[in-house]
C-alpha cells in the first residue's frame, strides 16, 4: 500500500513535469523536428546529463535501492533491425500524434478528450505488433 502510494506520487510528479515542460504539446514536437527551438533539446539534454551522472554514480558506488536491494541495469538485447525500424515507425507516430506513451496519459488527465483516440489506437498498434512479432525482422 505504501509502495503503491510512492509509485502514484512519482507518476504525479512525472505528469506535472510533462505538462508544465510543454513536452506534452503537439506544437513543441513539431517545432523540435523543425529545429526551430532549443526547448525540447534542452529538456532531453538536461535529463540525459543528470541521468548519466545518476546511473554512473549508482553503478560505481554500488548504491542500494531505498529498500536495500541491489540495483541492476539489464543490458538491452543486441540488434539493429528492430531498433532502427521500430524507431522510425515510432518517430512517424510521435510527430503525427505529437504525443509519446507518457504524455498521452497526461493529456487525458488535462482534459483533452481526443487523445483517447490516440491512446486506443496505440493499444491497437501494440496488439498488432504482438500478432506480427514472429514475422518481423528483429
Amino acid at each position, binding site marked *: 500500500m505504501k509502495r*503503491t502510494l510512492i*509509485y*502514484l506520487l*512519482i*507518476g*504525479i*510528479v*512525472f505528469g*506535472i513535469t*510533462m*505538462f*508544465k*515542460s*510543454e513536452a*506534452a504539446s503537439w*506544437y513543441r514536437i513539431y*517545432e523540435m523536428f*523543425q529545429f*526551430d527551438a532549443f526547448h525540447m533539446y534542452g*529538456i532531453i539534454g*538536461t*535529463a*540525459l546529463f*543528470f*541521468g548519466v551522472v*545518476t*546511473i554512473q554514480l549508482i553503478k560505481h558506488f554500488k548504491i542500494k535501492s531505498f*529498500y536495500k*536491494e541491489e*540495483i541492476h541495469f539489464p543490458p538491452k538485447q543486441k540488434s*539493429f533491425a*528492430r*531498433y*532502427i*525500424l521500430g524507431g*522510425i515507425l*515510432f518517430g*512517424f*507516430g510521435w*510527430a*503525427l*500524434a*505529437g504525443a*509519446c*506513451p507518457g504524455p*498521452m*496519459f*497526461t*493529456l487525458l488527465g*488535462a482534459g483533452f478528450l*481526443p487523445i483517447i*483516440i*490516440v491512446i486506443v*489506437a*496505440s*493499444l491497437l*498498434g*501494440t496488439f498488432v*505488433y*504482438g500478432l506480427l512479432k514472429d514475422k518481423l525482422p528483429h
Partner: protein
Amino acid sequence: MEWIYEPWPWYVSGFMIALVMFLLIMVGKNFGMSGNLRTICTICGAGNKADFFKFDWKAQRWNLTVILGAIIGGFIAHQFLTVEATIALNPDTVANLQTLGFENAGETYLPNELFSSTIFTDAKSIILLVIGGFLVGFGARYAGGCTSGHAISGLSNFQLPSLIAVIGFFIGGLIMIHLIFPLLF
C-alpha cells in the same frame, strides 16, 4: 511561487525527468512508459491471441500506478498550475504551421485542428490520430521502448541499442514533418 504558473524552463523540466527516473530506480523499478500499453493489452485478454501478451501483468501494476499518477498530474498541472496554456513557439514555426492550415499555432496547448472536442465528427482528424497512435504503439513495442525507455533511460546507461532507436525516432519524425505533412495537411 509565481514561476510555477509559467511554463517550466527546459533545465527545470530536464532535471525533473531525471529525478523521476532516479526515484523509480531507487524503488527498484525503471523508467519506461510504453510497457504499460502491452500490460493493458494483456489485461484486455490479448494473451488469447498472441503469446507476446502471456505474462503476469500483476507484476506490472506498479507501472500502471505510475501512469495513473501521470493522468492525475496532467489534471493538477492544467487545472491548478497553469493560468494560460499557450505555447511560446518560434514565429517561424507558427508561420510554417499557418501554411499547412494550422491557425493561431501556440495560442492553445494543442492544435484545435487535431484536438478540439469538435474533431469527433471530423473523419480526417480522427484518421490522422488513429494512424499516429497506432504507429506510436506498434513502433514503441517493435523498438522495445519509447522516449522514456530509450531516449532517457537507455541513453543514460550508454546503451547502443537505445542510440539506434533514438536515431530511428528522429529519422521517422523528420520524414513525417518535412515530407509527409505537406501531403497530409
